[in-house]
């Protein structure tokens, strides 16, 4: 099967609606998190969910489109990080395909792997486009590492990894719990959910 044929196969109407809904989920969970004043973002929960339910390509597309739409409606800076969101979705989909979302503790490992993918894409953008600084609280971490004598690259790597680790592990755990809680008639229609729920 050619790549474009695979795409058509994978992208049923259900998958397309799932992606659209997940984009809105990404954009609204921030509201819940700030309501509870929690130190995490969870803004890629929809992306990770699509990765688990519909595979890496759909997951990546969800992340990419979320940040592009954010860029259109809030601030163009979000669009600059759309490749990062894409990487998160792809990573989540791959982790699910290789059975890393079967139990809660595997989901924690998947969260760490997603953090790694996130860093691989986010570090170059932060470093080369923004000179390592994005004007947020995470910059304190970067300056601390610089003050310790690390080079700019090392400081940005440490900052990106630590500021995302808790968030991505929490995201992976919640996504795992959601997929487990979905009724069978819904997961049956999702092309990739079997990799997650079959262990149950």
């Amino acid at each position, binding site marked *: 099967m050619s790549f474009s044929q695979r795409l058509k196969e994978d992208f049923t109407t259900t998958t397309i609606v799932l992606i659209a809904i997940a984009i809105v989920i990404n954009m609204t969970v921030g509201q819940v998190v700030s309501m509870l004043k929690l130190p995490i973002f969870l803004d890629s929960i929809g992306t990770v969910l699509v990765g688990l339910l519909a595979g890496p390509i759909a997951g990546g597309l969800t992340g990419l489109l979320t940040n592009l739409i954010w860029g259109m409606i809030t601030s163009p800076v979000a669009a600059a990080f759309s490749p990062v969101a894409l990487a998160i979705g792809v990573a989540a989909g791959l982790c699910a395909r290789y059975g890393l979302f079967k139990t809660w503790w595997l989901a924690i490992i998947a969260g760490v792997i997603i953090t790694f993918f996130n860093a691989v894409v986010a570090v170059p953008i932060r470093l080369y486009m923004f000179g390592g600084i994005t004007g947020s609280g995470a910059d304190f971490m970067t300056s601390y590492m610089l003050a310790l004598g690390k080079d700019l690259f090392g400081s940005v790597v440490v900052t990106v990894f630590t500021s995302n680790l808790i968030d991505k592990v929490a995201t992976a755990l919640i996504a795992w719990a959601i997929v*487990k*809680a*979905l*009724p*069978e*008639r*819904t997961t049956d229609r999702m092309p990739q959910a079997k990799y997650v729920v079959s262990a149950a």
Partner: protein
Amino acid sequence: MTIRIKNISFSYPDGSRALHNLSLTIETGECVAITGHNGSGKTTLVKHLNGLLKPDNGDVLVNDSNTKACKTGQLARQVALLFQNPDDQICKQTVRDEIAFGPKNLGFEKDKINLLVEVSLALFDLVQYKNHNPHDLGYSERKRTAMASIVAMDSPVLIFDEPTAGLDHLEIELLLKVFEKLQRENKTIIVISHDVDFIAENMDRTITLANGEKIFDGPVRNLFQDDSLLARCGLLAPQMVQLSKSCKLPSAALSPQEFISLVQD
């Protein structure tokens, strides 16, 4: 458990006026309907009773304590409120856990929680589903699960927003039986509803809102016999009332039984 509302007004942050200079008192053990057209302020009003909203002016006193000084979490012990859509609240993976959610939040002892959950399961005919995932069940079961989760909180005042929406007549009868039981326990029941037939047949007192103001508060019969009042509220008379009028009966019947006895007279 008396609820006193004194001259409250409320506007949403976008400036739209939702309630205006509204006062009423609901005594222990009453069974009250709140009705009115869409956007008349019904849901806004009941959100004031458990502190989800605080009035801009005026006071809401639940059991003599002002809601301005209380958190919703504490007020839930006094006033339980069920929202329209069960899917806005279902967050647990079994019907049983979902019903236990409220009592657990209120910090009841384990034995008491178990007892309340079992009683509510039985009341709403959900015993056979207690270990099912609510999302695997149909709308009616989910709605009943949501209602059971509110009843299990054992609060002296229970508010139901559109409880009959999406239920068939057997399920409505079940709900009425639950209401009867709650009334025997001297609990206050407040029902928000558009369903004029349901109100006419089952409620004593009705409070009617239009554009955020109270325009009627009294026996159901007085409201439904007054055409000009109904028009002001944007409501249609119940079927039995309309039927009694077209049959030129001496008074309006509120239920089929009443209609039959009037015709026989």
